[in-house]
């Protein structure tokens, strides 16, 4: 597209629209490079693997003997994943719980923290640092903290409260135990994003609301929150991505088994390692892609709608 405009601009001899100017050969080369490199990167690193995964998901291949040894088996992988793979439906459920938890608990909590800290209370910086700290820690470290806190025999929680709960081994509890720590991290992340957003909200809006006699909750709901719309879109995308790419913490805890299955874990378990089930794992990856694409489409749709209105 860019090169087209450049070309026509050149042919006419006069710029067609205000901003399109005559381009020198150097500029055109620079533009070409700027287009070609991203195309290669996106094509090679995003689209090719995506379509390769989709293709492989219809085959049975153990990764030995080149791609020609892959056997086409149609939708058999999908059928097996959905019918006889005991980890699959729990994984879908856990990903959805993860998403719901981040959306309805962790993210609002992050917003709450940001809103409170935005009031310039004393020690605000200190609190910010404390809440943000878990975001800086790698998930591997958090995974290790999980161990310290929840170990049934040596852990902090059982030691402190004298309880005897198997926090990480009991499949009906461990997801929630892990989610507490995930939320602890996610809330800090969201808090920083919202803090930046809140700083950008014109204080006169709030003052006006206060003058009109709006209570704090009312002012937040009808004035401040709508003004945060641009940042909200970012937050939604971040939250969805965090929920779907969740991996590290459960992998560290118990390799993502026994109550902590996630789609990303199933993909890795099947593809990485010896005698890999590349086709089978790919079909789960494709399912994960579909889950991820839905929110992205919604996001893109909304952004375009905004630009059209503008």
């Amino acid at each position, binding site marked *: 597209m860019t090169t087209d405009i450049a070309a026509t601009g050149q042919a006419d001899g006069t710029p067609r629209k205000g901003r399109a100017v005559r381009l020198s050969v150097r500029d055109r080369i620079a533009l070409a490079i700027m287009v070609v490199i991203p195309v290669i990167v996106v094509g090679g690193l995003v689209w090719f693997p995506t379509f390769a995964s989709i293709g492989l998901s219809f085959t049975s291949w*153990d*990764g*030995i*003997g080149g791609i020609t040894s892959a056997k086409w088996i149609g939708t058999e992988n999908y059928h*097996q994943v959905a019918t*006889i*793979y*005991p*980890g699959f439906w729990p994984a879908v459920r856990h990903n959805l719980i993860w998403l719901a938890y981040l959306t309805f608990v962790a993210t609002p909590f992050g917003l709450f923290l940001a809103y409170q800290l935005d009031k310039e209370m004393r020690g605000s910086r200190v609190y910010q640092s404390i809440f943000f700290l878990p975001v800086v820690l*790698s*998930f*591997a*470290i958090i*995974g*290790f903290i999980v*161990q*310290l806190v*929840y*170990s*049934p*025999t*040596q852990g902090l929680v059982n030691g402190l409260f004298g309880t*005897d709960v*198997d*926090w*990480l*081994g*009991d*499949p009906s509890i*461990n997801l929630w135990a892990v989610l507490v720590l995930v939320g602890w991290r996610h809330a800090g992340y969201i808090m920083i994003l919202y803090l930046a957003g809140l700083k950008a909200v014109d204080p006169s809006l709030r003052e006006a609301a206060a003058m009109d006699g709006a209570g704090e909750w009312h002012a937040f709901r009808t004035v401040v929150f709508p003004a945060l719309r641009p940042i909200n879109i970012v937050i939604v995308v971040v939250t969805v991505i965090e929920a779907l790419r969740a991996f*590290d913490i459960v*992998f*560290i805890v*118990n*390799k993502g*088994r*026994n109550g902590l299955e996630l789609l990303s874990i199933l993909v*890795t*378990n*099947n593809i*990485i*390692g*010896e*005698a*890999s*089930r590349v086709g089978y794992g790919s079909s789960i990856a494709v399912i994960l892609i579909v889950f991820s694409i839905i929110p992205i489409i919604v996001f893109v749709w909304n952004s375009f709608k905004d630009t059209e209105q503008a």
Partner: protein
Amino acid sequence: MSDVRGHSPDAPETGHSSLTRRKLVVAGAAGAAAAYGLSAGGASASGLGASIFRKSTAGTVTFGSNASDPVPKGAYANVFKAFTAKTGTKVDVNTVDHNTFQEQINSYLQGQPQDVFTWFAGYRLQFFAQKGLLTPIDDVWATLKPQFASAFQNASKGADGKFYFVPIYAYPWAVHYRKSLFAAKGYKIPKTWAQFIALCKKMQADGITPIAFTDKDGWPAMGTFDILNMRINGYDFHIRLMAGKARWDGPQVKKVFNTWREILPYTSDGALGLTWQEGAQQLLNKEAGMYLLGTFVGQQFTGADAKDLDFFAYPAINPKWGQDSIDAPIDGFAMTKKAKNTKEAKQLLTFLGSAAAENIYLKSDPNNFGANKGVNTSKYTATQKKSAALVAKTAHIAQFLDRDTRPDFASTVMIPAIQQFLNKPEDVNSLVKSIQKQKVAIFGS
């Protein structure tokens, strides 16, 4: 992610016994490193790929090693020094992190592998032999044959009956206990299932957890499945089951799970949240009386405690089989199909199989015992002596579930299945049906 490396004694594990600050830091770093290695799968692959740039010259043999821990690494260095001194052939070693080596084995063998590499006996050997990624070494075995017991010979063969593997050492899975505790309480080593159950009841009455049992990492419980299956249905059925040739939903496997259920009340609470080290601590602190594990459990015992640690063979269940089988994973070496220095590689394999090489190796690795019959046992520790004696008198040696079956079946089917059993022990029927369906999907029949 298999698990397997877990039962290799050198795997780093978090969740150590005493929570001293230093240990935490170290273990945390290990966990972080593990996670990094995973997320950077591509990067670690390049570690293997680096071998491409190693040019092999005449009189050199290349060796791909998974012995990334200092102790075995140093032990191999000594072995190779002796080899070079003896033959004049140099050994060019490329050591890769233990877990990475295992996970990348597919691409490693298909890429530019070294001539000889460290590997495991059993189905995992046969699988790659069948895929045509290994070179048969029958000529090497012409020399080695008289030096190995038949169990080790059989473990070194592919499904086609040719030799593909040279064993160096093995370690048995047995029931560990503390001699002092048994002496103080008057416990007797159980030979039969009835005696075993009676002992469990007695221990429970004494306020001791009879059987330490841990399965957070997914693989330790496989040892219990293996031994129960071999005790109940015999070694041949076990191996056929592992190879995908027997049914999982038949009465045999159901019997295994039902028998297992009998001892579940006597095992550690919350086994699915415990690492094998935590189980070892229960045994060490005399909170638990017995612990079925590989002899690497000894890593958690030092000084007088180590001397107090002993083990016995799992009690017999079906008198038809008695105590005739055991899990004793064998480690050793194989030669890649793409080996460039064939002559030197075979020279090295012959040397690695010799008693002389094993003597050098075992000097620095007291948790395993030598595979060669001629190994000098005079310097053996008590554990090594007992291990060697136990395995020698056992007719059939299995390699452990995740080495005896397809790796994908072990990690994606059996680990979750056993954990599901431990969560819902009463639901055996639907469990074995689910395993059978997945087995058919993976094995193709």
